[in-house]
């Protein structure tokens, strides 16, 4: 993997691509199939992405499910900023966009979609947010990368890639729609 292709990361850091465009494509295709299999045709499934990149991934999954089944499934986004447990560690952050499909989430199987599963705190916040938005029949979790180091009893139902990481490393996801290219990079902080 030549470093020349990688997007610039801050000076001294070492970045290694762990997933390239085609890998992401294949992982999402597999997850879409798994969702269809596990939910028996995704009859009452609602895909909800966590902004920013989770929302993009949710839309991509919805496209694939529509391709395979010839039927659109509801897709939306749920912003978790107001439910975070670390709000008081930083100045107030701008809010993301919450966008529920018209049918809502009551009695649906909600599949939360995020790019990276790490501590599990984001998913915890998302579960709280869902609680205020309705009462789904079940909630499942899909993630492109599971990098471990959970701090809460949370696991993913659908995983694009299990990626063993050191806690000091950073996982950065780039997606065509927001970043101009598809890639997942593992960034190790350089020696300073």
């Amino acid at each position, binding site marked *: 993997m030549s470093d020349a292709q990688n997007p610039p990361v801050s000076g001294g850091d070492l970045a290694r691509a762990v997933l390239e465009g085609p890998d992401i494509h294949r992982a999402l295709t597999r997850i879409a199939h798994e969702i269809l299999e596990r939910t028996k045709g995704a009859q009452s499934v609602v895909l909800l992405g966590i902004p920013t990149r989770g929302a993009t991934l949710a839309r991509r999954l919805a496209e694939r499910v529509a391709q395979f089944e010839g039927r659109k499934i509801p897709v939306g986004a749920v912003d978790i900023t107001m439910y975070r447990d670390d709000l008081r560690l930083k*100045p*107030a952050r701008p809010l993301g966009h919450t966008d529920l499909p018209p049918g809502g989430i009551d009695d649906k199987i909600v599949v939360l979609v995020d790019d990276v599963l790490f501590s599990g705190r984001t998913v915890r916040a998302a579960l709280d947010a869902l609680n205020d938005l309705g009462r789904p029949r079940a909630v499942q979790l899909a993630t492109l990368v599971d990098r471990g180091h959970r701090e809460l009893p949370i696991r993913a139902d659908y995983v694009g890639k299990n990626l063993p990481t050191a806690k000091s490393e950073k996982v950065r996801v780039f997606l065509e729609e927001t970043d101009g290219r598809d890639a997942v990079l593992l960034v190790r902080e350089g020696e300073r």
Partner: protein
Amino acid sequence: MKHLISAGDLGRDDALLILDTAEELARVSERSIKKLPTLRGRTVVNLFFEDSTRTRISFEAAAKRLSADVINFSAKGSSVSKGESLKDTALTLEAMGADAVVIRHSASGAPHRLANWVRGSVVNAGDGTHEHPTQALLDAFSMRRRLGRLEGLKVAVVGDILHSRVARSNVLLLASLGAEVTLVAPPTLLPVAVENWPCLVSYDLDAVLPKSDVVMMLRVQLERQNAAFFPSAREYSRRYGLDRDRFAKLHDDAIVMHPGPMNRGMEISAEVADSPRSTIVEQVANGVTVRMAVLYLLLGGAIGGEVQ
């Protein structure tokens, strides 16, 4: 941003951040559980030295929807009526652990003074004839929701400019958001040095109406008027009131606003106030949303010494 004292303190980016945050929060008011846990454990004190219904209730609803604890303090029936000073009241609130103080006071500049005495954030909910920044923010928010933009919008603010804190805050905010404001009033109801404000001034409502996208009617504040500023209510109404005939001069997409409370039949006719192009009721709903955005941005993140 630590305090919100003047709309003039808000740069274009700050103001847009508040409006965009409000846009996201507007959905909270539409769902069945109208509550977010964000300000759990924060205390907001509503300190109202002047009568107010909608602003106080609006701030209270906004704080409660964000799960903050709300303490309402009105000067009537409090130790203020026994002669307690603003500073002593402030220190009392400080001792109760207020994270934010929302203050309305009849003296211009009271919130500014208060900000030096308390550790928490101070939000100006109207001070004398000076400013009412959250009203200007909710007005801008209402305009943007109805008309889709603020840049280049032509806004006429009509009436008792002299006693209006809403007018000053609107002029300052709308100027930084790129709208073009024209103040319309009889010369006696314009403040000194209005020519230095970032807006145009006219005495002729009929000339301004056809080119306006927004007409904001202000209440004639009889309680603040200590002299005869116009010959009679009837004459004021004939020259500066928005009635059916004047309303017809507006172009088809133009909207009519009023910060409330209205004097129906004085500055605005009942027919115009209740028309579908009037945003008066919407403004109240948007007020809660915009105040939620302000409280979130002031209190939602790290405050004081909480970082590290």
